């Protein structure tokens, strides 16, 4: 026989589980949205592809390679330090040859999604790097 307390616990567990699942889905969905936004708005300069005119890397990636000289990854998708406030600073103010981006191009909500995506992509990159050792 299930006691009232057990029932309450079961319901609480179910609610918690549902909440966790919903939170996870929302997080996953933010990362997915962030991935789409990254591919659309960031990857043409900061992606992993080959650059033009004989350059081995795309311009944003190459600029960060020159800036950090290996102390940080050149690829944004491998960075673990790009929280939403950091991204917002760079996106709204620009940096060197990267001009600032307007809210009509990248909204504040997009920045949250981008941060969620980059948190995941950097984990995936780290795991891949571990497997490669």
């Amino acid at each position, binding site marked *: 026989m299930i006691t009232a307390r057990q029932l309450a616990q079961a319901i609480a567990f179910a609610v918690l589980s549902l909440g966790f699942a919903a939170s996870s889905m929302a997080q996953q969905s933010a990362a997915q949205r962030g991935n789409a936004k990254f591919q659309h708005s960031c990857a*043409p300069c900061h992606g992993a592809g*080959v650059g033009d*005119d004989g*350059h081995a890397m795309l311009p944003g990636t*190459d600029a960060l390679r020159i800036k950090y000289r290996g102390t940080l990854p050149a690829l944004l998708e491998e960075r673990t330090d790009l929280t939403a406030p950091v991204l917002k600073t760079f996106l709204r103010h*620009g940096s060197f*040859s990267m*001009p600032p981006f*307007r809210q009509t191009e990248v909204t504040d909500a997009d920045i949250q999604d981008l941060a969620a995506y980059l948190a995941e992509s950097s984990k995936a990159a780290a795991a891949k790097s571990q497997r490669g050792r």
Partner: protein
Amino acid sequence: MAILPPGVSQQQFDAAVRQFKEAVGPEWVFTSEEELHPYRDHFSYIKDQPNELIPSAAVGPNSVEQVQAVVRTANQYKIPLYAISTGKNFAYGGPSPNVRGSVTVDLKRMNRVLEVNDKRFYALVEPGVSYIDLYRYIQDHGLKVWVDTPDPGWGSPIGNSLDHGIGYTMGFYRDHFGAHCGMEVVLPNGEIMRTGMGALPESKSWQEYKHGFGPDPAGLFGQGNFGIVTKMGFRLMPQPEHWRTGAVMVPKRQDLIPLVDTVNYLTDLAIIGEPWYGNGLTPLMGNTEFRDAANAFNETALDAQAAAAKLHSWQVELQFYGSERTTQSNWEYAKELMARAIPSARFMDGESFKVPLTREQISKSTTPYRSNMRRNITQGVPGLGIWWMPSRSEQNPNAWDETHIGLFSLIGRSGDAIFQAQRDFAAVSKRLEMPSLFPNAIQTPVNWYQFAFIMGNGFGLGRGDTSPEGKKQAAANLRRVLAENAKVGYGDYRAPPMLQDDVAEQYSFNNHVLRRFNETLKDAIDPNGIIMPGRAGVWPAAYRSLRGSLR
């Protein structure tokens, strides 16, 4: 620091902002310094100066009806508007307006691809659609058409074409404004007008016949300030099956004349895409004797040095779009014509690929000669690979090109015209005591526009003194160059707001009748002068006193 539109009180401005918010939604009206920062020109020569071209507000409409509402409010309060599409016109002012305190109409949210037709080869798009967006739409839908893209692909077909931007495939498509077909415009009084067949309500050929009937005002909207373009059609190049390249090398300096003549013939018969000219003597640049000969335009000495070094004086890379067989035949025909005109010409086969090229084929040249061709854009693939140009480099790891700017003069399409321009630019350089980066005698033209060449003066203005004083001096130098060029017949095709009055000064035939004509129209169509006053040097009466005020 809040900025107000000229002649508008804070109270009027606040009332206008309230109406803008009602029109587009409060979250799409931006007035704070933080929000407006991205609406400044990142490459401005007058950044942080009291006259920097900063807007007072920005509004982001999402529909043509919202654009109409914004225009009506601007008319009510006599507020100047400045429209941007993707706002990426860097080197030409970026998103910054001509008048400090304008309200920027940011059309980026109007980003719908309305139609792409790969049987009749056209597209109809809104202003916020970038070249990259349009390319991805075409790829996602498996359509067999190409986008003729400018170097950076983050700009929009509408914004780029309206500023007379260019591309790199076949001649007709390279002139982006020339390849437009039909536009929709919100006029200064808020009415919507459509050009060409769009003026016929039941038309089924808006993107196929751009002239309609009667005078066609479409040209007024290119580098113009007669309305805000909200839709535009473009002719698209059919995706070819094959791409082939080849190079022609000629030994002597004077061979450039028949070389250009022959390339022009092939171009205007639509046999070749954009030709890429090059000078074969650059390996001698470190040689003082060579530089002296080049600076003196000593043709005999230059030819002798070329022969001694076994180098060719000029080369042109040709590209052919079509089938494997037609591109082969056309290359053979090009060689035959060249050999007839220049018996000493040499030829080298370049590449021959089925279209679409693979990423690997695009990213790496396999030509047996040094190719100058930029590969993504020859394949109609927009991107941002070109952005290495103003960015950090191994040579300049802690600097970027803060004064990135584009200034190019139109040159007649012949070898003689190139030689004349080289000498004229060298003379301007000497008069102004502004040394060119390289001897003008080895300058080559670009053939972005099918029917004209474009050349720069060769001054090294980028990556120079970036202090406020240094930038001010650089701007003053540019103005002197524009004025000197005009004296010997060279005018620019495009400029940032900071220099638009100066370029407009170049076009002064018959006491500036063209500008007076445009300003007469401007005053009639836009009596309050609210649409982009000052653009391309066309000032409405209400703001005419601002002409030249940035000097």
